[in-house]
């Protein structure tokens, strides 16, 4: 089967979904009104509320939501064969993610640009807000831990990528300074920075001296590390500590100093990455060598597939961006369809190419099945396979294999690092808000909140034991990241359904994805918590058991809340229009 065929089929379904389904949702369900005065006009202040051209807003929205998650999830989920993964990405994007992202944007626009958290307070009450805060807290904690592991893992596997990634930091500070103090336009400096990074990558791929390989310094994989640990464990430990130190500094500095300029450079990388992958795909025309399905899989695809691929099929994280920033900048209400729905489609396009990069990597189906021998193994190797597969596609553009793997790993690290920066900052805000809520004033202090965020991340990422020993078990948290992400999406869909119900409209189109998501999430958690992670389970792990149990309680809580608020009779319309 040709990979181009699958890519084209996927893109055509995305296009049809946008053309017909999103139009139907916009006109018949949300009933967007081109004359409605959006918050961007109503509260125009030149800072948060700024009417913005829909294409520009879409660009910003897409670069904010696209990260390493739509790459990692699909690269793991191909364990069940490529057909289930492609189907879930394509159909999930069209019927769930599109509606979710679009809906959170629409509901926020109709409510003064308030965020989903505030709306939870308004529609469900105080209970809703607290529930929401705790779920986001768990989600960002998972994001921090998983992505810290992702970066450490890539640094150890591809030591040539270390130097280019670290060079980005002084370059970003320089751009921040140049733009902020000298008022220089940022396009040219950020492109220069990107060129310097890639030039470093090319040199580092060929010159071993420029590769910062901690494992090699300690005498290879069998060498002895610090504190009686092995070389690989020590390398993981050192990278994770360095990363968390960096994140602490980055998330406490003013955003214009480091975070934003890094975002500029990384936005280019998103374009470069997508261009390399899709051009490579169309130029090399690879065959899909992975099996369509995996009947011999020990772990069933139901329900795990739906939490393994979160970003790229549906992700609660997008609702935070939709309702937090994009809704305050929407020029016309009718633009919500393009920004929200098409933003989700963009993420789907990225997830689709991630799948294709992995399933065209191996020479034949047996090799693929040998590599993806179990679900746990898939979690551990998925990312590396994506990097290798993407480098294979980049080969179609004439990029040498060594350079291509370095550049692809830099792109993935950059995505992960951007997400890590943002989520640590977000976690700090949530800890501060919970501190205010529960009258613990110490938690509202910047450094206290950041310390709590970073320390809990460190504990979470270092405690699980992976096959390479201490510190290498971060991938075990991936299913938990998926479940917390889907819980958040479930809450957002619940709020949208509730809002539509109060307006007296048909809310089946948001209710069905919500029921589906909550069912799959609870099913997956029930299975994993009881039969895998518990002390009588097949793979006992107390830490995962506790977090999983907490997530399960939250999922149950949302379900109870959903039933109680959906069946309440006394709702008066919340929107007179």
């Amino acid at each position, binding site marked *: 089967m040709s990979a181009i065929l699958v890519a084209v089929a996927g893109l055509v379904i995305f296009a049809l979904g946008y053309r017909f389904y999103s139009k139907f949702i916009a006109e018949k369900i949300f009933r967007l009104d081109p004359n409605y005065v959006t918050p961007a006009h109503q509260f125009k202040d030149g*800072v948060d509320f700024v009417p913005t051209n829909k294409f*520009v807003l879409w660009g910003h929205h897409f670069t904010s939501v696209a990260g390493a998650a739509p790459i990692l999830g699909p690269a793991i989920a191909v364990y069940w064969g490529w057909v289930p993964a492609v189907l879930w990405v394509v159909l999930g994007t069209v019927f769930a993610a599109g509606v979710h992202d679009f809906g959170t944007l629409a509901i926020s626009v109709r409510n003064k640009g308030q965020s989903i958290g505030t709306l939870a307070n308004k529609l469900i009450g105080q209970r809703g807000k607290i529930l929401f805060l705790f779920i986001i807290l768990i989600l960002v904690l998972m994001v921090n831990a998983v992505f810290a592991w992702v970066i450490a893992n890539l640094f150890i596997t591809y030591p040539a990528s270390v130097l280019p990634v670290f060079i980005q930091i002084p370059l970003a500070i320089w751009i921040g300074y140049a733009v902020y103090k000298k008022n220089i336009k940022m396009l040219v400096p950020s492109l220069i920075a990107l060129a310097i990074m890639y030039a470093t990558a090319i040199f580092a791929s060929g010159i071993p001296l420029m590769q910062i390989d901690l494992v090699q310094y300690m005498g290879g994989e069998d060498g002895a590390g610090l504190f009686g640990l092995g070389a690989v464990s020590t390398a993981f430990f050192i990278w994770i500590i360095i990363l968390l130190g960096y994140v602490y500094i980055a998330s406490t500095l003013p*955003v214009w100093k480091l975070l*934003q300029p890094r975002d500029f450079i990384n936005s280019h990388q998103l374009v470069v990455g997508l261009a390399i992958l899709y051009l490579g795909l169309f130029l090399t025309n690879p065959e899909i060598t992975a099996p369509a399905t995996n009947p011999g899989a020990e772990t069933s695809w139901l329900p795990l597939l739906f939490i393994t691929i979160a970003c790229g099929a549906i992700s609660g994280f997008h609702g935070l961006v939709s309702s937090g920033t994009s809704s305050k*900048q929407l020029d016309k209400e009718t633009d919500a369809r393009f920004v929200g729905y098409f933003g989700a489609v963009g993420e789907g396009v990225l997830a689709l190419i991630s799948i294709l990069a992995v399933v065209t990597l191996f020479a034949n189906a047996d090799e693929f099945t040998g590599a993806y021998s179990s679900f746990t193994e898939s979690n551990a190797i998925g990312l590396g396979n994506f990097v290798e597969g993407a480098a294979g596609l980049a080969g179609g553009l004439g990029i040498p294999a060594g350079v291509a793997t370095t550049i692809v790993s830099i792109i993935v690290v950059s995505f992960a690092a951007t997400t890590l920066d943002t989520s640590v900052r977000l976690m700090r805000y949530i800890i501060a808000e919970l501190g205010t809520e529960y009258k613990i004033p110490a938690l509202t202090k910047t450094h206290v909140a950041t310390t709590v965020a970073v320390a809990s991340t460190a504990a979470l990422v270092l405690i699980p034991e992976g096959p390479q020993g201490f510190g290498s078990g971060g991938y075990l948290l991936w299913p938990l990241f998926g479940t917390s992400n889907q819980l958040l999406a479930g809450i957002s869909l619940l709020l949208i359904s509730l809002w539509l119900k109060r307006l007296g409209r048909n809310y089946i189109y948001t209710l069905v994805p919500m029921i589906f998501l909550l069912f799959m999430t609870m099913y997956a958690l029930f299975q994993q918590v009881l039969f895998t992670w518990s002390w009588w389970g097949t793979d006992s792990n107390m830490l995962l058991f506790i977090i999983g149990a907490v997530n399960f309680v939250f999922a149950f809580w949302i379900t109870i809340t959903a039933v109680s608020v959906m069946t309440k009779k006394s709702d008066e319309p919340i929107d007179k229009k």
Partner: protein
Amino acid sequence: MFENMKKLIKFYEEVLSMPHRQEIARELRNEDDLFMLLLYSEMIGIPNPVYYYTLELYPHMIEEFHDWHLRMGMDKSPLNGIRCC
């Protein structure tokens, strides 16, 4: 073709600079708010030795004053002399 390229680059640059512009505007607004606070510090009980002179700035400030007191959590104008709402 060349025109379209220029348009595309302009669009791309706008996408890039959007969040940054917002951040700069926010920083500026914070500075302005601080300045306002210095001017109207008497209102929250901080003595201001140059209060008499800052009165002269009122006509220039009246537009911004309304937004400022809303941001500072005061729904109605705290000054009788300025009836913005």
